[in-house]
């Protein structure tokens, strides 16, 4: 039952907000619904942690540890963004960047967006999962075009065109998977694309079709996850969308796309052996990491910087998947969790700075953010250290896990490139964020900090980023371990 409620709650929220007029009510509904979603997600995660799987409606909705983890992360990110959005959009209204009619657009589309992401994780049928992933694109396009300026329309157009090409490649891949299973499961039954059925028959799938299918899936969902060279929509969308939407895109949608890749990776490696899909994932992963390096070094705008960092992290997760040992699967999932916690914080800091200084460009901001906004500045420096994998923070742990899995499997080349990229990105990131935060502020900017709507979630996220590196609650860790067993390539 919680599975159905989990899908109904955001839908209901979207409908209610469509009917509401008052801003205050819309804010309250969105926060209430985000809290409900999160509670439901925790219930699902606990249930799955105890009984491995749950399913309803004749197996139409199905959750195992992997889906529960993605749902939990999505609900958490959406919750943080719901709080942040209240204050962020109020400031936008005050600065007359948007009209009050636009607010309704935000509060209606965001829950639909969240609904689509829940459906991605909970759909048993891989075709329905495709429909839901396309749904995330459709729900977010108008959010990217939110400010209705030239750059935001341009970003939205790029996003929907590249996204649609990617998603149709993925549909072709899904179709080929259906074909490769047709002789086992039979066609004309909905079961033909059900994950719970396919995973049992994975060895019997048609290898020729599966090989082609995986290539299409990787290209297709890889586009959605922002894997190089299909990443070009990412910097534009992340810098044009309103900050809470950008944070959801970066921290939750990329998880959903990776989730799709993980599912197909399991099927393909059970059908063809781990080498084929593993080496493809490694190539694309390393490629994304390498591509992010120069763009991070020469970046001029905060939010584009964050986008390239997110391309880098997607690369790291693909590398972890590609290695395919149980240690690397664990590392990948830990990274997914830590990334989903640290990325929103990074976006929130960048959003505060952007609204205060009326620009996202390093040059125009000048420096001295920490003097103008002490809390935001401090958190910005700390989370910049965290996402580049610096020790006391949690991402260090997951990157180290993936790296040690890498050397354990004697992937010396991959390991060395990995280290090289991480170190260079660390230097580039610290240079930019350091310049932004330290030094003396430009004249005419009065020191003032944001309100608690923003600082609350930001401080909570910062505490988690620090804390989870040392202490992972044992139910969560068990869930991650279970999910690791599911995505591990070994049968």
């Amino acid at each position, binding site marked *: 039952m919680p599975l159905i409620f989990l899908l109904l709650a955001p839908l209901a929220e979207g409908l209610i907000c469509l009917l509401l007029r008052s801003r205050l009510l819309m804010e309250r509904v969105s926060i209430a619904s985000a809290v409900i979603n999160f509670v439901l997600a925790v219930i699902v995660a606990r249930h799955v942690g105890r009984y491995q799987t749950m399913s309803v409606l004749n197996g139409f909705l199905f959750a195992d540890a992997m889906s529960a983890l993605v749902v939990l992360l999505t609900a958490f990110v959406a919750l943080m963004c719901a709080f942040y959005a209240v204050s962020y959009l109020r400031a936008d209204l005050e600065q007359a960047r948007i009209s009050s009619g636009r607010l309704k657009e935000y509060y209606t589309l965001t829950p639909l967006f969240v609904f689509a992401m829940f459906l991605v994780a909970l759909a048993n*049928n891989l*075709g*329905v999962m*495709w*429909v839901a992933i*396309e*749904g995330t694109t*459709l729900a977010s*396009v*108008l959010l990217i*075009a939110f400010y*209705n*300026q*030239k*750059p935001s*329309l*341009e*970003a*939205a*157009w*790029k996003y*929907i*065109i590249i996204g*649609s*090409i990617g998603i*149709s490649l993925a*549909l*072709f891949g*899904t*179709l*080929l998977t*259906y*074909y490769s299973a*047709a002789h086992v499961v039979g*066609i*004309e*039954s*909905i079961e*033909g*694309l059900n994950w719970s059925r396919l995973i049992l028959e994975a060895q019997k799938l048609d290898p*020729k*079709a599966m090989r*082609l299918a995986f290539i299409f899936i990787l290209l297709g969902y890889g586009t959605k996850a922002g894997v190089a060279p299909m990443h070009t929509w990412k*910097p*534009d969308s992340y*810098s*044009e969308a309103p900050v809470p939407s950008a944070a959801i895109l970066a921290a939750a949608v990329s998880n959903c796309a990776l989730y799709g890749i993980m599912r197909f990776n399991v099927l393909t490696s059970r059908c063809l052996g781990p080498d084929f899909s593993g080496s493809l994932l490694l190539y694309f992963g390393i490629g994304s990491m390498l591509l992010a390096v120069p*763009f991070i070094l*020469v970046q*001029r705008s905060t939010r*584009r910087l964050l986008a390239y960092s997110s391309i880098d992290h997607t690369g790291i997760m693909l590398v972890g998947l590609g290695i395919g040992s149980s240690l690397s699967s664990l590392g990948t999932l830990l990274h997914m969790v830590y990334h989903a916690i640290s990325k929103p914080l990074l976006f929130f800091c960048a959003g505060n700075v952007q609204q205060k200084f009326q620009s996202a460009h390093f040059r125009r901001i000048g420096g001295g953010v920490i003097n103008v906004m002490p809390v935001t500045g401090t958190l910005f420096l700390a989370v910049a250290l965290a996402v580049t994998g610096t020790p006391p923070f949690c991402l260090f742990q997951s990157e180290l896990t993936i790296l040690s899995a890498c050397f354990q499997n004697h992937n010396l080349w991959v390991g060395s490139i990995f280290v090289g990229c991480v170190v260079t990105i660390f230097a580039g990131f610290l240079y930019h964020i350091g310049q932004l935060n330290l030094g003396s502020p430009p004249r005419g900017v009065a020191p003032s900090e944001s309100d608690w709507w923003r600082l609350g979630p930001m401080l909570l996220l910062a505490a988690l980023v620090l804390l989870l590196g040392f202490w992972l609650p044992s139910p969560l860790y068990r869930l991650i371990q279970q999910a690791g067993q599911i995505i591990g390539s070994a049968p």
Partner: protein
Amino acid sequence: MFYDDIELGTRLITLMAAAMLVVQFLMVGQRLLPTAIRLFSLQSLFLACLAGTVAYVNQARHVYIAAALTLLLKVIVMPLFLNRILERATEKAEVESHLNTPASILICGGLTLVGYMVAHPFIKPHERGHSTLAVATALFLMGFFLMMNRRKAISQVLGLLTAENGLFLAAISLTYGMPLIVELGIFFDVLIAVMIFGILVYRISEIFDSMDTNKFRRLRG
């Protein structure tokens, strides 16, 4: 009865797939947007007929639903909708492309060959003349080519829709379509996508005074 003849059914299917390919080539060579929209409608009509034939020959009942939906949405609703956007966005209705027509057609010929090569391993010897999968792959690739080659926003949408037609054709020829629920979901998504494309095109033509995506050059690096 002649329509019980499976051989005839197969021939009809191949014929209609070929017609779809021909229409696609016409579209590549076409310079006027309203005509291009009409050609898309025609291609979808062939697709709907083909789906109907497949459903009849193979007794696959759920494919009838897909055929009917294609007829309703892709032959009638979407072209009407695209035409309306075209009218509202005041703009000379001519397609502008990066490459000239002969070069585009040559490239599309090449893409058709690629389609046949990709589809080759999947064609079973006992299904003689069943080259719909090759046509489908070719349509898919040519749709993407149209998207990249065209500069007007609406013609990029048309490219995407023809690629979608190719996908649907592939689905029919490989497995008699996807499970019904998935197919309904896909139709729903495509419909919403076209509507969102419409909204965006409208906003773009309002703010940029043009639908030419070449004027997009703010976001770099």
